[in-house]
């Protein structure tokens, strides 16, 4: 009798059958240390395990996560109330000490995520469930910025001697780079680099999952064709990083569902506006890109609709400004693209003193953005019609990025994604005159405009939303009208999945398993 009871009890204890989401994308993660690498795919995986004080809701509004609420005691002091009864995956309770510990950890110089706590001078523990953020100055986007500031358990890190952030450059391995212990919706079950990554649902999670996915298996598949074939063969349920030319075919497949949406990433061409003579050009003694007429002409000559239709197969939004739809500050009205006019561009370049045109070299990555090299090739042709001869130097992104960061370029292609969904992030990184820190950190052509600098510095600390919005509009308009950059388009990033799978498209290109359903 006793045995039968035991059997019934056992049967009742077995949970309902789990649902697995098999997901494939191009890249593997670099580490499991949440404070080591500012790398899109790594952050997309880590967010399933580690949480921050705030998070994005379905429409990218700020939601409380590990903090339940916050208030400003003064412009530079914010008080966060922490969620009670939250436990890390290993069972240790979450307290203010963990927040203070994680803040010290993310700031270690060998990591690359300090940007997410930039402007925070100190985090003070008030009591076990309250912390104060002391800021260097007022910060209107603090709540968005700290989303990727993820909290790690102090006790766990100390027990496993993982207090120090993994130093990726020194090929360092630590306990925290291979193991994970967060508070998030999923628990890391295993990671075989370049092979697979396995998550299981966290039964003790403080929030409810909207979907029904209990297990996630992520497989990185480098080759485009293999990844698409895996989906067609039914080996995976969800594929991100789709090759554009295959999208139309996949759309027609009745066994698949396509989720279309754009990414908050803008692809553009930057121009050297600092040197008095271009490093890679046949113009001697002056820099044609310092002349606004030349910059405007380069903008005019680009046929963005043709790039969209032919090279991107419809998967782009032609861009006139430097931020994508969905980023705070973007408006349809600002982002209105006018058609290409090579004849007018040629005239403008002649007016600027180059009746026979001129030559320069365009540096272009060939493995980073969707069809990057093909777009550059198309640009060479479009600019040739305006009389400008362009030499194309297409190289892998890993050599491209250090080259342009050293300002060893005359013109370059770059794509800029906006993690904070606010225009300041773009303006500060790309347009603000380069100083130390985040100001002008990716201003590779060294754009420098006193008026814009003043505007950007003002919007960093302006707390009045209306005033700040006006500043953003003014800055974006000025960047467009002075043609400091040549924006090309905002990328569209469709995801393909089997018919029985549904999830929420994310503009940061990070699928979240808590929204996914497999029926």
């Amino acid at each position: 009798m006793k045995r039968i009871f035991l059997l019934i009890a056992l049967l009742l204890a077995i949970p309902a059958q789990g649902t697995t989401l098999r997901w494939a994308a191009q890249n593997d993660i670099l580490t499991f240390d949440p404070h080591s690498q500012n790398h899109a795919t790594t952050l997309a995986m880590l967010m399933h395990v580690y949480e921050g004080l705030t998070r994005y809701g379905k429409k990218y509004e700020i939601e409380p996560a590990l903090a339940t609420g916050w208030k400003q005691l003064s412009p530079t002091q914010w008080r966060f109330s922490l969620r009670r009864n939250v436990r890390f995956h290993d069972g240790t309770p979450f307290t203010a000490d963990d927040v203070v510990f994680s803040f010290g950890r993310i700031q270690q110089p060998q990591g690359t995520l300090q940007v997410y706590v930039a402007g925070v001078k100190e985090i003070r523990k008030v009591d076990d469930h309250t912390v104060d953020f002391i800021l260097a100055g007022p910060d209107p986007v603090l709540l968005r910025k700290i989303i990727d500031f993820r909290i790690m358990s102090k006790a766990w890190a100390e027990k496993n001697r993982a207090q120090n952030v993994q130093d990726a450059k020194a090929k360092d391995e630590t306990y925290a780079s291979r193991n994970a212990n967060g508070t998030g919706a999923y628990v890391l079950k295993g990671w075989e680099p370049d092979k697979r990554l396995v998550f299981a649902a966290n039964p003790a999670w403080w929030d409810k999952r909207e979907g029904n996915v209990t297990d996630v298996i992520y497989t990185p598949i480098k080759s485009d064709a293999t990844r698409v074939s895996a989906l067609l063969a039914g080996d995976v349920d969800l594929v991100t990083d789709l090759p554009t030319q295959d999208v139309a075919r996949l759309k027609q497949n009745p066994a698949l569902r396509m989720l279309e949406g754009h990414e908050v990433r803008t692809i553009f061409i930057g121009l050297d506006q600092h040197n008095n003579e271009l490093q890679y050009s046949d113009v001697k003694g002056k820099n044609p890109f310092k002349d606004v007429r030349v910059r405007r002409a380069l903008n005019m000559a680009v046929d963005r609709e043709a790039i969209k239709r032919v090279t991107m197969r419809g998967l782009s939004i032609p861009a006139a400004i430097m931020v994508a739809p969905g980023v705070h500050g973007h408006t349809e009205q600002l982002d209105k693209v006018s058609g290409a006019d090579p004849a007018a561009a040629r005239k403008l370049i002649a007016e600027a003193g180059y009746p026979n045109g001129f030559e320069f070299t365009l540096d272009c990555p060939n493995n980073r953005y969707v069809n990057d090299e093909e777009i550059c090739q198309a640009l060479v042709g479009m600019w040739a019609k305006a009389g400008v001869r362009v030499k194309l130097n297409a190289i892998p992104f890993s050599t491209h990025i250090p080259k342009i960061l050293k300002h060893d370029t005359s013109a370059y292609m770059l794509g800029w994604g906006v993690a904070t969904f606010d225009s300041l992030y773009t303006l500060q990184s790309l347009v603000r005159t380069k100083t130390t820190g985040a100001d002008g950190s990716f201003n590779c052509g060294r754009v420098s405009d006193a008026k814009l600098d003043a505007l950007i510095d003002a919007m960093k600390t302006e707390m009045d939303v209306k005033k700040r919005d006006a500043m953003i509009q003014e800055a974006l308009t000025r960047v467009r009208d002075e043609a400091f950059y040549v924006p090309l388009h905002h990328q569209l990033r469709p995801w393909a999945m089997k018919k029985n799978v549904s999830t929420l498209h994310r503009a940061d290109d990070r699928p979240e398993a808590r929204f996914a359903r497999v029926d």
Partner: protein
Amino acid sequence: MTGLRHGLRAWTRRVWQHDLAWSLRRSPVTVIAAALTLLCIAGALFAPWIAPQNPFDPASLNLNEAFHKPGTPGYPLGSDDQGRDLFSTILYGARISLGVGLAAVLLALILGVSLGLVSGYVGGRLDAFIMRVADVQLSFPAILIALLVDGVARVSLPNHMAGSIAIPVLIFSIGVSGWVQYARTVRGLTLVEREKEYVQAARVIGRRPLAIMLAHVLPNVTGPVLVIGTIHIATAIITEATLSFLGVGVPPTQPSLGTLIRVGNDFLFSGEWWITLFPGCALVILVLSINLLGDWLRDALNPRLR
């Protein structure tokens, strides 16, 4: 005048009755191969006059003309993803492929023949050294050596030169990876020739070694070198295509046949089959006909097979 015409006729007759011409006439396959090779060379040579478009001039390209199907007016073989007319691009691409192939063979030939001559004639330690280097190189696949040389050249030369030096680097890497065959063949033949009376006679009358090598030995080893060279042209073209297919060859704004096949490969699944098929066919025809010519030349020059 009549003398000249008479001379011309006599020359034509001599060529017609020559052993090679006789053997060529007897092999219809070779005649077709020779005709195809000539056609390819002519097409490549006169590309600027034959091709309806100059695909290497970016100003003549129009993105709106991309992905035309074969048979579209003005685009007999269709157009690629940049709006280049495929027929024109194949002609211009063949120009690069043939040019790189010929130049690389010439480099390998000069390098290999001179090393082989010296090795065989001088002998001793120098011979041993050169032959060991050749052995070591033979144990690596040629494509691997070409990739290695290409990679080192790219890293050691400044970045901004990458576009303009791509073709010389390609020629150098293919040439350097192919010298061994020539060197070994020529060395073997030189060893035989060295002992013959005419060489010894030349030595006795006091001719210097260099003069003996060039004036006496070299003309007697050219036959096999010619055969290897012909077949090597085909191999070099394939190597160039492979390197370009792997993305380390010529820049995409001046595509060779290999680059075109790589570009087209991305569009195979999406239905634009012509971008990779036609350049692929052109490559096969070119390489096959040169190979057939080389085979025929080997048989024709071998007296034992006659």
